[in-house]
């Protein structure tokens, strides 16, 4: 039975509960980002995501011109467990216009 407990949003983790079964954006340490469907999480922000795209960003410096070259590496993973200690933030996916 639906109770007030299920619907009440009291603390930040409750906000994440609203995103269950929805696509989310996760920023991780080491310049990594994930976009995927949130299937499970806990208080440590350990998560299981589905249909995930991982984007790894790296900056190379050209030996001669010293310009910064920003590269991104992408891969897709069907189901992924993410350890919570690497998570920086969780959000609904950002819309790029």
């Amino acid at each position, binding site marked *: 039975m639906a109770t007030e407990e299920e619907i009440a949003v009291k603390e930040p983790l409750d906000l994440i509960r609203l995103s269950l079964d929805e696509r989310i954006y996760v920023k991780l340490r080491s310049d990594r980002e994930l976009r995927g469907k949130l*299937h*499970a*999480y806990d208080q440590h922000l350990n998560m299981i995501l589905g249909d995930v795209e991982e984007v790894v960003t790296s900056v190379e410096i050209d030996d001669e011109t010293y310009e910064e070259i920003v590269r991104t590496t992408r891969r897709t993973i069907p189901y992924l467990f993410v350890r919570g200690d690497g998570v920086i933030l969780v959000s609904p996916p950002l819309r790029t216009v």
Partner: protein
Amino acid sequence: MLFFSYFKELVGKEVTVELKNDLAIRGTLLSVDQYLNIKLENTRVVDQDKYPHMLSVRNCFIRGSVVRYVLLPPDAVDIDILHDATRREARGN
């Protein structure tokens, strides 16, 4: 305890554990504990040319804190059960 229970159900399945040092190890999940320490058997390093450190290693214990990801087989994920368990866990805290 949610993910501890989940991984206990996965024992016997083949997974790929990606560590924080970028090493990726594929193997059969042998056991897991409350810290999400992992024991794998029949292990192979994913990019063996790049990481020849463990060429002859077939069994290993991985400290939970060094894990970045565990890549799961699609048949090991029951979405409905995970959603229900998450809602129960979230409500209990």
